[in-house]
């Protein structure tokens, strides 16, 4: 047995590596294909497009996080989130149009989302209505309510502060406090400075956002430190691990973080939306991996009966998952309204499907019990890159949907096949 133990810790197995990181590899390949597209070389990697990618997909990250928790409980999905996004946004926009305080509005929107989630969770967890049906009902009902609130018309947002915090306009970026604080830096970041303009590029050097770059740098260092800590503590405990694999993934991710913040710094800096996304992803990555309720989500999805007999109140676990996605739908409503500077009665249609697709592309099991926030992030980014890439290379809007469908199918197929080989 000790020999077996050794083979697990030693060596780098390419097969295992590719299996584990299939979707990351797919993401890289897809990005390269779009970046090398004849006539559109490098366009998708332009700072403006990259910033747009994040801003446009904010709601996907937020909703997919909530969806992942539901899926973990046993492949349950929430079809109502698109309608809930629209409804919370409709209430919020109407409130602000009537002159309500912005913070109050934000709180009300989140509370409404949470209340809707808890309401649907009640039917699912306590009455045991199948999640699919309970949320299908919600999808119809809250679309209807949105129309009622909006009277069928669009409502615009005039509140500058709201738009700055949750929107996508020129002001919705973290200001470059470093360069504002040290004006003399302007004389360093000039086109004439051969070293910097060579490094950053002629077009971007004068406006280069130093704060953004620093945030990226700190994030990358923190990530590496966390990983090193994890590897060392696992080593201390004698947990088997593939060290080369861990090093490769750590390096790739931190380089990616640095590269993205560099690109963002070349444009307008660090978008506000990204803060909300990062916050939500961070919190939920923690909840799913480190807390008891996170563990219960996985356990219920893996074997509900065994979990109940272990003294876990499984109904509350379902309730938590659905109340939680309601809350996140409220947040997604805020971001959607902020980006669109208002709300239309048709906004949010199909959002639920984007969220579901991201989870499944990211490796969540359709039967529940397995799936990670990190996988879901890759899934969402992959979808976003494909969307953006197709717009850039000029694929017809109808065919874009066809491609999305095919990608979902292929991704899940890979997942199923790789799991089958393991057995």
């Amino acid at each position: 047995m000790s020999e077996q133990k050794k083979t697990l810790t030693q060596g780098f197995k390419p097969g295992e590596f590719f299996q584990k990181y299939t979707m990351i590899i797919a993401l890289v390949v897809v990005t390269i294909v779009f970046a090398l597209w004849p006539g559109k070389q490098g366009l998708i990697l332009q700072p403006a497009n990259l910033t747009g990618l994040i801003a446009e997909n904010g709601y996907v990250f937020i909703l997919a996080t909530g969806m992942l928790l539901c899926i973990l409980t046993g492949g349950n999905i929430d079809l109502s989130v698109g309608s809930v996004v629209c409804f919370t946004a409709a209430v919020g926009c109407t409130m602000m149009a009537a002159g309500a305080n912005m913070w109050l509005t934000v709180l009300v929107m989140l509370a409404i989302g949470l209340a809707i989630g808890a309401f649907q969770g009640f039917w699912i967890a306590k009455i045991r209505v199948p999640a699919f049906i309970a949320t299908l009902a919600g999808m119809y009902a809250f679309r209807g309510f949105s129309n009622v609130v909006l009277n069928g018309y669009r409502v615009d947002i005039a509140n500058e502060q709201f738009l700055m915090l949750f929107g996508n306009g020129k002001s919705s970026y973290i200001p470059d406090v470093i360069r504002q604080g040290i004006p003399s830096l302007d004389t360093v970041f000039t086109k004439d400075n051969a070293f910097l303009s060579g490094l950053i590029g002629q077009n971007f050097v004068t406006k280069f956002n130093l704060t953004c770059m620093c945030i990226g740098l700190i994030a990358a260092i923190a990530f590496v430190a966390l990983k090193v800590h994890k590897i060392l503590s696992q080593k201390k405990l004698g947990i088997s691990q593939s060290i080369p694999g861990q090093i490769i993934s750590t390096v790739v991710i931190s380089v990616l973080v640095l590269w993205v913040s560099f690109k963002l710094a070349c444009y307008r800096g660090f978008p506000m939306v990204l803060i909300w996304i990062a916050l939500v992803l961070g919190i939920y990555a923690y909840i799913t991996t480190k807390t008891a309720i996170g563990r219960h989500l996985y356990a219920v999805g893996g074997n509900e009966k065994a979990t109940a007999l272990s003294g876990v109140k499984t109904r509350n676990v379902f309730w938590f998952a659905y109340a939680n996605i309601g809350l996140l739908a409220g947040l997604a409503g805020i971001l959607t309204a902020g980006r669109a500077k208002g709300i239309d009665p048709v906004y949010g249609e199909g959002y639920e499907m984007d969220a579901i697709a991201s989870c499944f592309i990211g490796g969540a099991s359709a039967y529940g019990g397995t799936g990670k926030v990190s996988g879901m992030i890759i899934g969402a980014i992959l979808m976003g890159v494909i969307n953006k890439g197709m717009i850039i290379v000029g694929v017809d809007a109808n065919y874009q949907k066809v491609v999305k469908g095919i990608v979902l199918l292929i991704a899940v197929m890979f997942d199923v096949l790789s799991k089958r080989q393991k057995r």
Partner: protein
Amino acid sequence: MAKILLEMKNITKTFPGVKALDNVNLQVEEGEIHALVGENGAGKSTLMNVLSGIYPHGTYEGDIIYDGQVCKFSNIKDSEKLGIVIIHQELALVPEMTIGENMYLGNECGHKFAINWNKTYSEADKYLKMVGLEESSKIQVKTIGTGKQQLVEIAKALAKKARLLILDEPTSSLNEEDSRALLDLMLSFKKQGMTMIIITHKLNEVSYVADKITVIRDGTTIETIDNHGKEPVSEERIIKGMVGREITNRFPKRENVKIGDIRMEIDHWTVHHPLYPERKVVDDVSMYVRQGEVVGIYGLMGAGRTELAMSIFGQSYGVNFSGELKIDGQHVKLRKSEADAIKHKIAYVTEDRKGNGLVLSQSIKVNTSLANLGAISKNTVIDGDKEYAVAEEYRDKLKIKTPSVEQLVGNLSGGNQQKVLLAKWMFAEPDILLLDEPTRGIDVGAKYEIYCIINDLAAAGKCVVLISSELPEVLGMSDRIYIMNEAKIIGEMPANQATQENIMAAILRSGRGA
């Protein structure tokens, strides 16, 4: 010498990293019952999967010679065409469908576009009569008991025109009466010329029914024993082949037995069936357990043992409870909550480890801590290092064979899964352990280790309730025995007065009285 119907020659099958079968040879004569025995994970099921084409030709080495022909099966259909039919351990019937529909599932009677229902049901009835099942083939499978369902499986195999019937642990979910009936059915098939291979853990069945016994250990054939001598082959003889040593004592000796005061007591405990509330599944049961005592509950399948244990454990089964539960002399208020039961230091180790016990898609570590996450977390945040240390501790203590506690439980053998289940409940630190069939479907070696764990628990002052349908186990392990039949406790005796005969007699008497 009779004709050899099946010969498997030098079968070698490798899975990534594991050699499951290594040069296995098996010869089965026409018209005999051939038993295949071996510990869990020895490779019996793998061998049968090779034979039936579940692992297609080309994924293994060696030859299958059936009826004089070298066979290259690429799927189950190929082998079934030749009359090789396998009946799996887990019943594969659709509960909502009728018996007839189940029997011809995938093998429908009639035209391609129109099933001939009259023919289906009349044929089905014919085969049901052959297996001695007196039910109409038009009733739903979920309405008949497990024993009858097993007969339906056999009728289904017969409907496929079986010539070589493979039964993978056919009696594992049957009570003794049904098991005996099934074995007798096999003997009557043998008279009609059917060839059968039976895989089983129950060695008394082997010596009763088998003509030849092939022992497999660690993926290789150890020996083939002939069971035609004057005396039937003794169980000890077979065990010796299976584990490679002679087990002189199947039950470890209890040391420093110190039985203390009564810890848990139930009084006039009555529970009703959750779906048919007029039916009592536990009827006016009174019993107690003392500190450091192992109390056996023996009863046939369906006697209400599991229902009794689960109803004590936070009323996790049944409705309309009445009676009193006392722990340390204190009345415990009835409430429907497993968490409450755990708080009162009761643990229920289920008989159905895959269905009710373990989260197969999660690691050993996660399963070990599941019932007591509070102990390794602070403000509901789990301390990963602590959790790992706990899992390692129990892995050592219970000798769970695995390269790492990060291993998924679904990948472990039955015996090791059972140990993980025990680890989970031991970590919950209970005082009263309700063990429901803790050695079901696991091999002799692992059984012995589980018995040692039970003894250690009792020596540490825990109260152990051991529920089992294996009489020798109850007799060998308990200090005191309750006998249960038809939802009632019908007898109680100290272990030193109990014998197989007087326990069975008690059950028979109560049956007649009712």
